[in-house]
């Protein structure tokens, strides 16, 4: 509790004590002495509300909750309901205190969740370690990261190896191993060894700065529900005030016209209890708090959402469009099959890899990566590259040809075309003898099928995959991960056109999932753009509305779940708070409830709504 809150707490306790003493003595509410004695706790607990009400009148801000509380309690005092006047003030203050405490607490705990800000960086100067502000470290300078410390800047490891915990960034608890030559991202925590890192970015451009900027500035875009509530609050309070005035005047005037006693005090009392319920606090605090907690809960899972409006959109997603390469698949080519090979599989792979040892083509790299042993390049000579066809080289004195069907045709080698596998087929011939072929494919992510299944389970009716690859490859990948539809052979600009068509036909909101590298136009065009694997990619963080720090596809379903839970809480709170208030207004007008019930309704609803809102912070695992 801060100073302000403590002061209010002491005032509350003192008031309760004084009332208890009055009840024990007992002090009569009828006498003039009673009226004077009750003034002490009343002013003690309510002086700031009364002062604020006066200031409000001076600034022509009549319809605020201070004014209403002042009128209601002064009125109650005038009706000689002293205890009630004190109690209304007391409960109002208790409610306000609880609210400010709860909000402060969740504000703190949520900002702690995303506490990835590095405090310092270690640099070596004159043979000694010195701690400096990460802002002062130059690009290219060497920093030293000890075990247990946070990586302050993005860079490349030049000495040492360790495992890094990325949990604060991605929600993933499995550590990531790094060694010399690996790029590392700021915000991670160094678990084991000492790392010497050459920085590649200044602090303000580093991943951690970008993420902090995103998180801190999230929710400056308000959701429809939040805007609805501010509009509602704007009209609700004045409406209740005029309602109270009407409740006071109309029945009494009606009675006078009919020649009956006016019962002024009865109607005044009912009108005053009307005013007590007029504070829109429960709604006004619980809705933004729910969204804030929802955004906080998501970021703990490594899902950064740029505003509460996106959280709202995410909950209504009915169609998810995926990019293939890098999203459904890993975007890394691998040798996925070796067929029709008469010689040893590893031997053929090694021959192919040696022949391709000087090529920088991604496919050549994937062949080299498939060989587990280190390659002895001295075994290779006379490498001849035939662009678009392949390569011919002498390995161990034997002629090795590695390439597509056209290369085999040129050499007059008969080859077997691949029947089942999907991917690029590379034939290998040794000394003009056909030696089988390698299939090189982009690997589908392990949990892709499960992730798509989860989305379907959540009621996402349509999943579509877009790819520049040919029909055959697209169909096979779509079947494998059970995506419902696919569009193949798309050029980059055609992807946008395709998305336009999907948007035109969609019933709910459309989300696009990509890696954020070259699909920025599509990410911005759809209702909600989700970028994956954003750790270390500024482009993705800029372009998307939702940023998944790692490339775990399951997080898409999880983020939809989080958003739905949050929105459910928001609607619960709206309906509950407005419902209870309306019921109390009706009962109060009919004279069934009194001011006590009214203040309980007001404060009680707020406490329940705030507690319910905080629930949005918690995300169930899986």
């Amino acid at each position, binding site marked *: 509790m801060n100073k302000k809150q403590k002061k209010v707490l002491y005032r509350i306790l003192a008031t309760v004590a004084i009332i208890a003493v009055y009840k024990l003595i007992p002090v009569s509410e009828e006498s003039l002495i009673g009226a004077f004695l009750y003034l002490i706790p009343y002013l003690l607990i309510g002086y700031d509300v009364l002062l604020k009400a006066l200031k409000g009148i001076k600034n022509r801000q009549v319809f605020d909750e201070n004014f209403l509380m002042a009128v209601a309690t002064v009125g109650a005092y005038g009706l000689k309901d002293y205890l009630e006047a004190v109690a209304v003030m007391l409960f109002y203050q208790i409610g306000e205190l609880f*609210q400010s405490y709860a909000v402060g607490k969740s504000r703190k705990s949520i900002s702690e969740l995303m506490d990835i800000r590095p405090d310092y960086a270690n640099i070596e100067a004159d043979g000694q370690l010195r701690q400096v502000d990460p802002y002062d470290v130059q690009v290219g300078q060497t920093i030293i990261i000890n075990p247990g410390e946070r990586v302050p800047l993005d860079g490349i490891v030049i000495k040492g190896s360790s495992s890094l915990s990325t949990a604060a960034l991605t929600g993933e608890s499995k550590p990531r191993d790094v060694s010399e030559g690996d790029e590392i991202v700021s915000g991670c925590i160094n678990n084991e060894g000492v790392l010497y890192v050459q920085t590649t970015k200044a602090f303000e451009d580093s991943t951690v700065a970008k993420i902090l900027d995103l998180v801190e500035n999230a929710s400056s875009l308000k959701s429809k529900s939040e805007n609805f509530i501010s509009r509602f609050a704007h009209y609700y309070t004045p409406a209740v005030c005029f309602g109270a005035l009407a409740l006071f005047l109309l029945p009494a005037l009606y009675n006078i016209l009919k020649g009956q006693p006016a019962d002024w005090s009865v109607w005044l009392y009912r009108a005053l209890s009307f005013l007590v319920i007029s504070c829109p606090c429960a709604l006004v*605090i619980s809705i933004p*708090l729910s969204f804030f907690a929802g955004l906080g809960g998501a970021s703990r899972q490594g899902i950064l959402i740029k505003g509460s409006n996106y959280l709202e959109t995410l909950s209504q997603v009915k169609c998810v469009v995926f990019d293939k390469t890098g999203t459904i698949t890993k975007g890394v080519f691998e040798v996925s099959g070796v067929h029709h090979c008469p010689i040893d599989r590893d031997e053929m792979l090694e021959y192919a890899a040696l022949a391709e040892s000087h090529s920088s083509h991604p496919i050549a790299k994937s062949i080299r990566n498939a060989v587990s042993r280190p390659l002895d390049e001295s075994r290779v000579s006379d490498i001849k590259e035939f662009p678009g066809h392949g390569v011919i080289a002498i390995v161990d004195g034997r002629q090795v040809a590695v390439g597509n069907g056209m290369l085999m045709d040129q050499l007059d080698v008969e080859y077997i075309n691949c029947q089942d596998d999907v991917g690029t087929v590379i034939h290998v011939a040794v000394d003009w003898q056909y030696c089988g072929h390698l299939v090189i494919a982009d690997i589908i992510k392990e949990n892709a099928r499960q992730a798509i299944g989860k989305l379907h389970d959540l009621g996402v009716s349509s999943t579509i995959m877009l790819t520049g690859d040919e029909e055959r490859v697209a169909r096979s990948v779509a079947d494998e991960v059970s995506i419902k539809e696919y569009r193949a052979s798309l050029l980059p600009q055609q992807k946008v056109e395709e998305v336009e068509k999907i948007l035109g036909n969609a019933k709910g909101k459309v989300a696009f999932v990509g890696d954020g590298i070259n699909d920025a136009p599509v990410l911005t065009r759809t209702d909600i753009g989700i970028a994956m694997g954003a750790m270390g990619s500024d482009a993705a963080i800029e372009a998307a509305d939702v940023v998944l720090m790692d490339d775990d596809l399951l997080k898409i379903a999880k983020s939809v779940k989080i958003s739905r839970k949050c929105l459910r809480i928001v609607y619960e709170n709206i309906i509950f708070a407005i419902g209870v208030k309306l019921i109390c207004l009706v009962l109060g007008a009919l004279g069934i409830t009194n001011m006590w019930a009214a203040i309980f309704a007001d404060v009680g609803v707020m406490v329940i709504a705030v507690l319910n809102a905080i629930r949005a912070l918690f995300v169930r695992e899986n």
Partner: protein
Amino acid sequence: MKRMYNIEVDCANCANKMEEAANRTEGVKNAVVNFMTLKMAVEFEEGVDAKEVMKRVLANCRKVEDDCEIYL
């Protein structure tokens, strides 16, 4: 031009009132107050002096909520 300011305010409804007051201020194109993060995002009209405008914004906010603060 868009700027972010830290603010200090006690209740959510007061934050809404500050937002309204800021939006009424001359030179402000759009202002959004976030009570949870205690921040005010202000988008200014073309060619105005942000410092001057923010002084007026603070004055207007003080009128509706006298103990609020904007850290300029």
